[in-house]
């Protein structure tokens, strides 16, 4: 046991009065409140945390924080938990990942013996041929897939979402970030400070007593200044106009909360991330970054080893020496890179290092090797702001180049300095951010109609007069003279990168995708610059010449649950919904509407409409109120037929086409008064027809007097259908409904069941005598119940969508979007008489003219385009109803000719009927069609003379 809990440390964040029990790898273990899972495991003397994903090599803690690539564990039913970050809770069961059968002995570790076969692109190259064997390969390879175990029985967690519009968002709560937040808040800005870790302070938290005192002081000041502080939260992305995604991992009410923030200015103070060093044996447990050792000792009171070698190139490494000695670790040797020292390898077993070899060939026994070779600038948010950071070889890291006015950088990302200098730079940045936010706020408020008016001219964007931070010289240390692991999470070594470069994958973006380096859970935070450095070396160029990959969102991973947030799935119901539910309706979701599909027996519902009377709730039918003197002009423009002469009290059917001549909607429009019309659209077309009509009015004909108001849900729409519908309606309305007073395709307004202002029209989608009522929705249920009560002796029954589909199919009425598609031009629907090419203009007119052989450039001999035609079909075998979308094929070749667009068994006709799209050559009445069923069997169908299978002359609906 080389790791153990130390006596109390001055800056420790654990609460020793609150021990927490958990299990690690099946054995009971104990930690304290404030421990991370990893620190508790390490304090228990465990050096190995997991095995690597490809070679299954034993791995120990490397960074001991969020980015640790070696510390992914399974916690209860949750896989891939970052144990270096997640705090310990009582009673959890923690197990290592990628270990089978156990952490100590792993069968797949044999992978490393055949490692040369797992070179970059191995899977691409090896398993691509023969393709038919892929399913077999897949089964074997799936066993090797890395990661934890998903429990499909897990209860869905609660996720939350909120929006916010702060003046300033500060990403990063280190000294500069805190100082910036305080200064911005003191300048009057509303400030949101987002810290990735569980504590404010950044590197000060594992620093000296003075460091901690400074962090505490800044935190107190930030809270006093009214800064909203989010801990254990990350700004995951920056999008246009400072739209920010922020994930809040610790929230009392939710597993995770996604915050979408529109910041007027964003301050990026993400700090620096310590970079690992590439050399032989650099992934042997016991090799650790300086910052990891300092975290373990100073924050969690864990002794990281017993005998250490420290390879240092900077002050942070030097401070680690002091920390180690204070923690009782023997520092066997300090190798100083600034004095030309270097390390080349570690030796030992797979599970622990035993010695470290230096460049001068000497070897030192040690169970711990600390490296402090420099920093990676996590410039993600700057990349997302359009910046392309520039490499500075003298400081051995990237620095920002140019950011937009509303994005400012401070802290380690911006430069180096003493803590006081960083704080001062932060303060200046916060003041500047607040001034710029005020200018943005002024502009937003002045240009927003609903906002409180603002006085004065818009303030200019404040100039950047900050004193820039300096840059400390730092040796460039990426790879030693030996090869080692570059990407720990993906098990990619520097040798792999060199060989991939030789294969020709020598641009950084290609190399990344081919080798998967930087594509694992660490997402480049640790390995990007080393990858670039190895590539540069292989190409004989500098890092600046090679360039780097562009970091994209998210900065830190977030769960799909957080992205989904609370689930908003708007549902719409009619006023009769509660009745449907109470009367056994089987619900079906149609768009957002919940509608009755049937009430138990759709065939009986069909027959009852044919024989007695049925009512259906058609409230989702789109309805638009049209008023104004120029409505006929608009109707003429939207529909393909003519509307100028529609008299008051008349109803007419029309189809609408888009400008490409394709049918986009259909419905009836009635004239209720001299200046008032009611248009109906398909249920799904209600919104788009409205926008379409507004588009024509606003952009092409703003001089027309037309007002369109959507009234879909103002009315409960009820269709009364069947031979006894007239009798039923006559009992409830003051409007005369006899055949002479209320003719087919007429509209009346009046009182129904005591409800005034009802619109009634006589139309016939079902093919029966029928009346469609549009009742003020607050009284919809009342009218529905009155109809059911009054119709009892007439045999009234409600019918649902399914019965309506059968009824309309028996009548051969097509449904836009089901029987038509994105290629269906109006003339092929069988409704050529409704296309009036002699109108001056209407949407899609030229396309329809060409489709009918009468367009510009068409001469007498030119024929119409050979588009599929909509026909009615009857199956030869009435017991076979081909599923909708069944293919119609050429019998010998199986060449696809068309498809069945609608099909049902018709209880009225005792026949299997349908609508189909077929080429014109197959559209003649009596043509035999071959239909391919999903089973692979075939059946035959015959094209009918009329679209209507039933009552083709329409005698019933005109009764």
């Amino acid at each position: 046991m080389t790791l153990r809990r130390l006596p109390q440390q001055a800056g420790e964040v654990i609460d020793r009065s609150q021990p927490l029990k958990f299990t690690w790898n099946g054995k009971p273990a104990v930690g304290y409140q404030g421990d991370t899972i990893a620190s508790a495991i390490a304090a228990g003397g465990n050096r190995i945390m997991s095995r690597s994903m490809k070679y299954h090599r034993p791995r120990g803690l490397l960074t001991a924080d969020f980015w640790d690539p070696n510390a992914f564990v399974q916690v209860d039913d949750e896989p891939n938990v970052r144990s270096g970050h997640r705090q310990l809770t009582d009673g959890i069961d923690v197990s290592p990942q990628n270990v089978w059968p156990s952490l100590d002995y792993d069968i797949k570790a044999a992978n490393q013996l055949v490692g040369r076969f797992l070179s970059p692109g191995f899977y691409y190259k090896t398993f691509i041929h023969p393709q038919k064997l892929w399913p077999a390969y897949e089964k074997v390879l799936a066993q090797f897939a890395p990661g934890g175990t998903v429990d499909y029985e897990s209860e869905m967690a609660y996720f939350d979402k909120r929006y916010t519009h702060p003046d300033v968002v500060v990403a990063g709560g280190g000294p500069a970030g805190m100082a910036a937040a305080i200064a911005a808040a003191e300048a009057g800005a509303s400030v949101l400070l987002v810290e990735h870790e569980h504590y404010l302070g950044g590197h000060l938290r594992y620093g000296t007593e003075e460091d901690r005192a400074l962090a505490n002081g800044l935190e107190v000041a930030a809270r006093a200044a009214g800064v909203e502080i989010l801990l254990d939260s990350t700004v995951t992305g920056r999008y246009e106009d400072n739209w920010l995604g922020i994930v809040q991992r610790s929230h009392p009410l939710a597993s995770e909360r996604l915050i979408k923030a529109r910041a007027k200015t964003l301050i990026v103070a993400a700090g620096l991330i310590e970079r690992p060093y590439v050399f032989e044996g650099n992934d042997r447990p016991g090799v650790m970054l300086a910052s990891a050792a300092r975290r373990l000792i100073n924050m969690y009171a864990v002794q990281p080893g017993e005998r250490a070698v420290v390879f240092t190139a900077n002050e942070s490494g030097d401070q680690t020496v002091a920390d180690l000695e204070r923690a009782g670790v023997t520092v066997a040797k300090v190798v100083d890179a600034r004095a030309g020292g270097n390390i080349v390898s570690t030796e030992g077993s797979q599970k622990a290092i035993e010695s470290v070899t230096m460049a001068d060939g000497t070897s030192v026994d040690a169970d711990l090797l600390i490296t402090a070779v420099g920093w990676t600038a996590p410039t993600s948010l700057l990349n997302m702001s359009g910046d392309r950071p520039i490499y500075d070889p003298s400081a051995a890291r990237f620095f920002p180049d140019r950011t937009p006015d509303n994005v400012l950088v401070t802290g380690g990302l911006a430069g180096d300095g003493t803590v006081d200098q960083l704080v001062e730079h932060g303060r200046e940045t916060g003041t500047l951010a607040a001034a710029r936010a005020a200018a943005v706020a002024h502009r937003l408020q002045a240009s927003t109609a609903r906002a409180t008016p603002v006085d004065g001219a818009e303030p200019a964007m404040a100039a950047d007069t900050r004193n820039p931070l300096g840059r400390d010289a730092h040796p460039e240390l990426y790879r030693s003279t030996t090869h080692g692991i570059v990407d720990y999470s993906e098990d990619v070594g520097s040798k792999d990168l060199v060989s991939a470069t030789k294969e020709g994958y020598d641009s950084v973006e290609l190399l990344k995708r081919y080798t998967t380096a930087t594509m694992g859970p660490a997402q480049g935070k640790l390995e990007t610059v080393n990858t670039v450095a190895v590539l540069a070396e292989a190409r004989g160029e500098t890092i600046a010449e090679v360039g780097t990959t562009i970091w994209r969102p998210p900065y830190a991973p977030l769960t799909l649950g957080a992205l989904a947030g609370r689930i908003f799935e708007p549902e719409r119901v009619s006023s009769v919904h509660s009745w449907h539910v109470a009367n056994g309706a089987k619900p079906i979701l149609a768009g957002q509407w919940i509608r009755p599909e049937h009430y138990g027996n759709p065939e009986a519902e069909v027959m009852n409409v044919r024989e007695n009377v049925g009512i259906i709730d058609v409230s989702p039918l789109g309805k638009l109120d049209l008023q104004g003197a120029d409505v006929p002009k608009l109707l003429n423009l939207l529909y393909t037929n003519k509307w100028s002469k529609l008299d008051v009290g008349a109803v007419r059917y029309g189809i609408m086409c888009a400008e490409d001549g394709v049918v986009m909607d259909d419905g009836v429009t009635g004239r209720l008064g001299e200046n008032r019309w009611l248009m109906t659209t398909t249920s799904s077309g209600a919104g788009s027809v409205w926008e379409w009509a507004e588009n024509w009015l606003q952009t092409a004909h703003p001089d027309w007097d037309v007002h369109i108001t959507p009234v879909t849900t103002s009315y409960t729409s009820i269709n009364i259908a069947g031979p006894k519908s007239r009798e039923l309606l006559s009992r409830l309305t003051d409007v005369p409904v006899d055949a002479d007073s209320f003719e087919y395709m007429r509209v009346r307004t009046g009182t129904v069941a005591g409800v005034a202002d009802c619109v009634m029209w006589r139309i016939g989608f079902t093919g029966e005598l029928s009346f469609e009522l549009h009742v003020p929705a607050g009284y919809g249920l009342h009218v529905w119940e009155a109809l059911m009560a009054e119709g009892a002796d007439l045999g009234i029954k409600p019918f649902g969508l399914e019965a309506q589909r059968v009824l309309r199919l028996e009548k051969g009425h097509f449904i836009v979007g089901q029987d038509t598609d994105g290629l269906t031009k109006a003339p092929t629907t069988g409704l050529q008489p409704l296309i009036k090419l002699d109108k001056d203009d209407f949407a899609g007119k030229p396309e329809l003219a060409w489709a009918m052989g009468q367009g510009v450039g068409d001469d007498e001999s030119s024929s119409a385009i050979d588009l599929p035609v909509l026909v009615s079909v009857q199956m030869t075998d009435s017991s076979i109803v081909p599923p909708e979308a069944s293919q119609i094929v050429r019998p010998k070749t199986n060449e696809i000719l068309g498809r069945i667009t609608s099909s049902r068994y018709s209880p009225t006709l005792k026949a299997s009927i349908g609508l189909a799209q077929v080429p014109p050559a197959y559209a003649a009445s009596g043509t035999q069609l071959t239909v391919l069923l999903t089973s692979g069997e075939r059946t035959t169908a015959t094209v009918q003379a009329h679209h209507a299978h039933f009552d083709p002359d329409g005698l019933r609906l005109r009764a």
Partner: protein
Amino acid sequence: MLLVPCPHCGPRNQSDLRLLGEAVPRPNPNTATRKEWGDYLYLRENPADWVTETWYCRVGCRQYFTVERHQATNEFRNPPLPGDKVGNSTYTTITVGSSGSQRGANANSEEQPS
């Protein structure tokens, strides 16, 4: 998420509006050749430069307007003033082919502000 300068509402989230694309003039439907009409339906310049495009303030004021946007930088310029009649411009926006007519089962669903 872009802030789109609606001339009536003021800046609004992009998800509150619908982009109809580059504004192109509608040819005379009675004289247009197949090529002219086809270009109107399907051909757009799509430069890495300023374009005049049409937006519909779907969630807000329900007004159509044209505005210039730089397609490489997403900057906006020259939105019409609130009193301007969009239709008086030389552009019209009735450019919807069937594929763009937002049809389908969820045509009336609201899009998520994301």
